[in-house]
């Protein structure tokens, strides 16, 4: 309740702050301090609401729908905290929280730069206000109570102490398919509970838990960093609009540059952390699958990187006037945020439902419409302002660049990045029109762009600002060109790279690598704060080489590993040595001994049945190497207890029905229920239901009576043996309503451990793959991030007026 109040107050304070900033912008004198109070009040309220949500999660307050749906009492602390953003409501909350914090820094930053504050904070505050509308109690507040909409709660999540309450019996349901029992949560049951003096928090003792796919280290860092990136994307938007509002286009460039750089750095880091998550834990086999969710955050990143380059040109050409590419920079800075909103729309509106491996919960029509309005309004604000100033912009900013100038090189590079962004955007948006594209679409189109980027990455840096003499250009690029050709030739010869496009990409990346390396060595003796760009550019070159190797020359193979037998795969000897339970027996690690030469390593891919969704989960293991990763993804395991059947045969019979089993006839005659059964069922105490089976074999009749013991939600099977035929009967499932039982029939001696005539084989099936030089992909990304940090530091020093 307090959470919702805090969120509502935050929204009110936010609107107030935006209005006060607007009035300040219009020239009112005393409104600036009011606006600041408004913004700070809003921030405090958002922080309060976030703290309350975190507290509710940590103390398992399952009366909140959000906490019940995404959290659980058995999670370790780190993962428990991460359930804060496991669902839609919480992730919007986290985005709001980070935006508010970024806004506090931005407020401080802009307040030191003349009249910047009111213009920037007005726009930024408006964006934050819209996020606050998203999490308000009428839309997607994480503080909604569980009983406000009907929901079925699994009986196992409910405190058994209250189940015998007579008033609750009307709310009990069961699902014949899964044989689970539920309590229907609604306002009705809430009033019953209240009448009996039971709080919902006491009544529900366990949440649905966190999706096992999300239960790992990366869940704890990837989403928060991504949302910091999202939050920072609103900053360039605000700066560009602030410039348009004042109709003054010089200062905003140097003021916005450190923000664009750090925002792009954070977003890029988040994207690749997601890629590493997919590779190392989710077992996609690669770091990038052109999945819509990945794509939709890649697009704003590409545009962000493009804008850095054109902003830099404008900054460099400001000796007199505003500099070059004024319009381009305004448009790109606005686009970053609009694309983040579009990305949110794509991934949150449920529109991609069929197209992505990420699971989407349909948020409902109101949220869908709100997202459309949110996006639409900011498109109108952004492009409306540009249209409003367009005439002024075209008349005043109209200059020419030379062919061999760094300006044009950087511009062309930005255009190449934009082309890539458009391609990814079109491919990702296709599901809106009931279409989708194959992976090939992205790969084939982005490959030539990567080549262009490699070439420009190197050559732009050899070009001088304004104008370069042709002979100077050749002189300077000679070393790098020769070195690049030599390196590429070596890779082609020894690495076996043969596809022509990949060779060209290698050549262009190697060229970029050497140009940047050479410049970097020179700078190392001089001003080190200038290193940023070169480190980042080396990063992208290394990254691209890694992509060529790992993308073009990975190899995979599915193999069956028989326990104790060695099998050679890609030059490694693989041997399955057994499995062991890990994580308190929740998961199983399958030990695969890998021998190459004299070195022996153990890979431990993991498989387990997740209770959460009742399905088999698999986690790969990777032997990381400098030149290649050896990737082992588990596929399946056969214990070898029976030829082809893991758990014996299951027959399903309704009352009176018979079936043939290995030449025997099995008839399900009737259920056998003790008299006290009915009474026990309603009181919740233990009772037993038997199934009378007649087995006719070799002209003889036998009777067996397997049974099931039921107590509350728990079921226990009591098997029956037919020693004459060496069989065991066990009820695996029972439906009293339709009179159907599932009976598992297995051979007696298997489970009792006595000798078996057949030698059983334990087989682990794995998919083994070789990923050459995938380490370069990660090294490249790390270099890029480091480069961005250097540059952001340098540009923030320069941004002070």
């Amino acid at each position, binding site marked *: 309740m307090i959470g919702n109040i805090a969120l509502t107050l935050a929204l009110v304070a936010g609107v107030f702050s935006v209005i006060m900033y607007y009035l300040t912008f219009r020239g009112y004198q005393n409104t600036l301090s009011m606006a600041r109070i408004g913004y700070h009040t809003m921030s405090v309220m958002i922080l309060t609401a976030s703290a309350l949500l975190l507290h509710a999660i940590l103390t398992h307050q399952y009366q909140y729908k959000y906490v019940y749906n995404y959290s659980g009492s058995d999670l370790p602390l780190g993962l428990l905290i991460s359930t804060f953003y496991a669902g839609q409501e919480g992730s919007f909350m986290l985005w709001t929280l980070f935006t508010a914090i970024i806004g506090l820094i931005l407020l401080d930053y802009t307040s030191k730069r003349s009249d910047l504050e009111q213009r920037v904070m007005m726009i930024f505050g408006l964006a934050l206000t819209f996020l606050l509308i998203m999490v308000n109690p009428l839309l997607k507040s994480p503080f909604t109570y569980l009983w406000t909409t009907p929901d079925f709660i699994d009986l196992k999540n409910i405190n058994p102490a209250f189940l015998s309450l007579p008033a609750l019996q009307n709310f009990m349901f*069961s699902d014949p398919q899964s044989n689970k029992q539920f309590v229907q949560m609604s306002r009705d049951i809430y009033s019953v509970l209240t009448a009996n003096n039971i709080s919902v928090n006491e009544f529900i003792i366990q949440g649905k838990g966190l999706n096992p796919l999300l239960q790992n280290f990366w869940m704890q860092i990837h989403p928060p960093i991504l949302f910091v990136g999202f939050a920072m994307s609103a900053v360039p938007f605000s700066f560009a609009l602030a410039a348009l509002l004042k109709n003054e286009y010089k200062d905003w460039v140097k003021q916005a540059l450190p923000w664009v750089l750090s925002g792009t750095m954070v977003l890029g880091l988040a994207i690749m952390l997601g890629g590493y998550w997919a590779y190392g834990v989710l077992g996609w086999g690669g770091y990038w699958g052109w999945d819509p969710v990945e794509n939709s955050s890649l697009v704003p990143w590409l545009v962000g990187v493009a804008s850095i380059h054109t902003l830099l040109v404008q900054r460099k050409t400001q000796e007199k006037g505003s500099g070059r590419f004024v319009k381009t920079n305004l448009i790109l800075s606005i686009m970053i945020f609009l694309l983040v909103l579009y990305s949110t729309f794509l991934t949150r509106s449920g529109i991609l439902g069929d197209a992505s491996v990420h699971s989407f919960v349909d948020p409902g029509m109101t949220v869908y419409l709100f997202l459309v309005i949110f996006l639409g309004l900011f498109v109108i604000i952004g492009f409306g302002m540009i249209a409003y100033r367009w005439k002024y912009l075209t008349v005043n900013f109209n200059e020419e660049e030379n062919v061999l100038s760094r300006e044009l090189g950087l511009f062309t590079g930005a255009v190449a990045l934009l082309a890539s962004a458009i391609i990814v955007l079109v491919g990702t948006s296709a599901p809106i029109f009931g279409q989708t594209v194959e992976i090939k679409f992205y790969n084939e189109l982005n490959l030539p762009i990567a080549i262009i980027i490699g070439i420009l990455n190197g050559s732009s840096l050899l070009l001088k600002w304004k104008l370069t003499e042709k002979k100077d250009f050749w002189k300077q690029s000679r070393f790098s060109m020769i070195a690049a050709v030599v390196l590429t030739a070596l890779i082609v010869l020894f690495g076996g790279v043969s596809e022509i496009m990949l060779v060209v990409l290698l050549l262009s990346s190697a060229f970029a690598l050497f140009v940047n390396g050479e410049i970097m060595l020179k700078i190392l003796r001089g001003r080190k704060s200038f290193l940023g760009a070169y480190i980042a550019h080396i990063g992208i070159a290394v990254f691209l080489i890694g992509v060529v190797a790992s993308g073009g020359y990975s190899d995979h193979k599915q193999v069956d590993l028989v326990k104790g037998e060695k099998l050679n795969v890609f030059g490694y000897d693989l041997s399955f040595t057994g499995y062991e339970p890990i994580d308190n027996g929740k998961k199983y690690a399958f030990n695969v001994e890998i021998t190459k030469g004299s070195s022996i390593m153990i890979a431990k891919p993991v498989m387990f049945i997740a209770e959460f*969704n*009742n399905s088999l989960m698999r986690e790969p293991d990777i032997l990381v190497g400098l030149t290649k990763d050896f990737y082992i993804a588990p596929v399946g395991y056969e214990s070898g207890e029976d030829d082809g059947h893991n758990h014996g045969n299951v027959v399903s019979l309704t009352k009176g029905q018979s079936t043939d089993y290995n030449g025997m006839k099995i008839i399900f005659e009737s259920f056998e229920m003790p008299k006290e059964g009915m009474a026990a069922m309603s009181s919740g105490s233990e009772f037993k239901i038997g199934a009378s089976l007649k087995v006719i074999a070799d002209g003889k009749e036998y009777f067996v009576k397997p049974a099931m013991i039921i107590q509350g939600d728990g079921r226990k099977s009591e098997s029956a043996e037919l020693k004459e035929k060496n069989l065991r009967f066990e009820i695996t499932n029972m439906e009293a309503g339709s009179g159907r039982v599932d009976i598992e029939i297995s051979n007696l001696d298997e489970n009792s451990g006595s000798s078996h005539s057949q030698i059983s084989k334990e087989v682990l099936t794995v998919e083994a793959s070789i990923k050459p030089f995938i380490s370069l992909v990660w090294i490249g990304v790390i270099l890029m991030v480091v480069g961005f940090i250097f540059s952001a530091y340098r540009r923030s020093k320069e941004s002070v007026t």
Partner: protein
Amino acid sequence: MKNKYMFGGFIIVVFLGVMIYLFTQTNVTYESSFTKVMQSEKTVKATGSWIKERNYEIDRQNSTFSFYMKDDQGNIMKVMYHGTIPNNFESSTSVVVTGKYNNGVFHATDILTKCPSKYQEQPVQNASS
């Protein structure tokens, strides 16, 4: 003509052209009617549900995985996936397979499974009766 428009324009025009061409070549439509899937010669994304009763088979020799799918109208189609059974398959409610129909079997190159996210979607009956 300004240099920046020449360079930038050239890249954009070339890539837009190639993109439109490739889009028409690689685009895949969603198809929920298996009658249409079976007639189509192109790669499609067929959407339907896995028929749990008919189970699935894993062929380790050829590393294929096959199962039966059903569309809204109840048309049944055998699907063969050249790869391993995806995580979550057992609990999936709806399945999207990408591939082509050929000789009575839908050869899938990609499988996407959707899982029930909430219990409400399942039919629930009163048990106490």
